[in-house]
């Protein structure tokens, strides 16, 4: 049985090294659904052509695969709707000092 908290906890381990904030609080994760041990994530990057695109996608996959009960992960990278700075979680940003 996959626990929701563990999935989000895993996603928060994926940190953008440029801003030192995890992808959930950066507002990069649009949607996460799972069924029968398979998790699907719809996510974006701060801009198309972000140099970290491949790293973040692979990081999400690795993080989720480390959660007990997860057998497969599919990551869909989308740019519609485009990410914008308003998607950053203010509390998280403040908690991190707003800076790395």
């Amino acid at each position, binding site marked *: 049985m996959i626990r*929701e908290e563990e999935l*989000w906890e895993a996603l*928060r*381990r*994926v*940190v953008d*090294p*440029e*801003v*030192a904030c995890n992808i*959930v*609080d950066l*507002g990069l*994760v*649009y*949607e*996460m*659904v*799972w*069924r029968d041990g398979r998790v*699907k994530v*719809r996510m974006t990057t*701060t*801009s198309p*052509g972000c*140099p970290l*695109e*491949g*790293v973040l*996608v*692979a*990081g*999400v*996959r*690795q*993080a*989720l*695969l*480390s959660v007990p009960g997860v057998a497969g*992960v*599919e*990551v*869909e*990278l*989308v*740019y*519609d*709707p485009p990410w914008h*700075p308003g*998607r*950053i*979680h203010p*509390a*998280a*940003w403040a908690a*991190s*000092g*707003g*800076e*790395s």
Partner: protein
Amino acid sequence: MKGNRPQEGRNAGGAGGDVAPASGALPVPTHAPSVSLPLRFFAAGFLAVGLVPVGMLLRPEVLSTYHYNQYVIALTHLTVLGWMGSVVFGALYQLVPVMWGTRLASERAARWHFVCHVVGFAGMVWMFWRWDPKQVGHFGSVLALGVGLATWTLIRTVWRAPRRTWMSAVLASALFWWGAVVTVGLGVAAAKCTYESAARLNPATPLGALVHALEATATYLKGFDQIALMHAHAHLGLVGAFLLLLTGVSYKLVPMFTLGPNVSAGRVWLVIGLLDLATAGSFLTILHRSPWKLAFTVLGVTALALYGWDMMKIVRGRRRPRLDLPMRYFLAGLLWLVPLAGLALYLSHPGLTLTVRVGQWENVYGLWALLGLFSFSLVGMLYKIVPFLAWYRRYAARVGLEPVPGLQDLYHEGWLRCGLGLHLAGMLVLTAGTLGTNTSLVRCGAALWGAAMAVHGINLALAWVRRPVAAGRAVAVRTAQPVSVS
């Protein structure tokens, strides 16, 4: 719009995009070339920039007096091609495939470009220093071959990319001006040579045709004022090849690094179009010593004013409250545009007569552009790119599995501050030495400036050997609920 709370049993829809393979393989760069490609350009750039202050220490009169001699030209080309050109091409090979979402058309061609680039600029600088225009032309041809390879590789890369944006126009413009400035430069070198063999070579043979063409080019270009020709050539390179690229690229990178708002594509097109027009118009009016050159300078300054306004809006609207040091370094570079624009308007004034004082201001103009504007911007961007490459090689595979250091952990922030201080001090003393025609001050400023570059070079090189521990700040930040999509 859907929320991102997980719902068991629900299938997710969504727009198209890359679907990652299900296996948990190591993150391999999907678009970027091998790390060694940009790095070799950056290393060549730092070697070249290390020689610039050496040249100024040996020949401080390049700044303290207004006189075109072989040392001025050699050091200018060492800075422009060896330092700026190397870093710019290294950055382009790294960024273009990533930004356009494709692979580099030919990494092999890019590697050959590197060979041509290093042989070309090193040979040119050496031959300028010894003043052998014929050999300058030969090495310049090697450099031109490299620029041709780069243009072919980068245009093909962009052509087959799935993403077409205004960045394509920026790149195409900059590469066009690169081709133009190299062609004009080769023409200037040809005009400094004599062609005794033309009389005995048959123009029907390939060698004869080449020599006769060079002689005809030389004869044509000798009809222009040689100082005006050199100024036009320099302007073509600085504004067309470098400033236009810096302007366009920062429209992409500044919002990305500051988490600021993007500028509309229409606005970028306008700024780039005005800069293109200003470059072409200024080249022709400088070449012909036309009073209309002021009009094109005003056009260029207008474009830069719009650009500056846009950059201010991005920085003010950013979500990163504190700008990191590399970004501040980069933005400090852009601030040089303010005095440079003022100086450009003054020096373009049609009624201006060349006096010793005006000549000194021309030296200051070149100094602020090369060692101020472009060097500050390039150093700032290098502190973004080089640590990223080192980080990628060492930590990318661990993302999601364990805490990894941030990019800023890979360089020493204190050294960066020290380098910034030395850079500013060097510019201040070099400016004082130039305006005061004081060789001792120029030597002192050169030493400070060289020390700044040495500090940055060592700091960036150490990014490859530093082993920082992932700090708590780099670990995930907790929130009660995930953010909403809408």
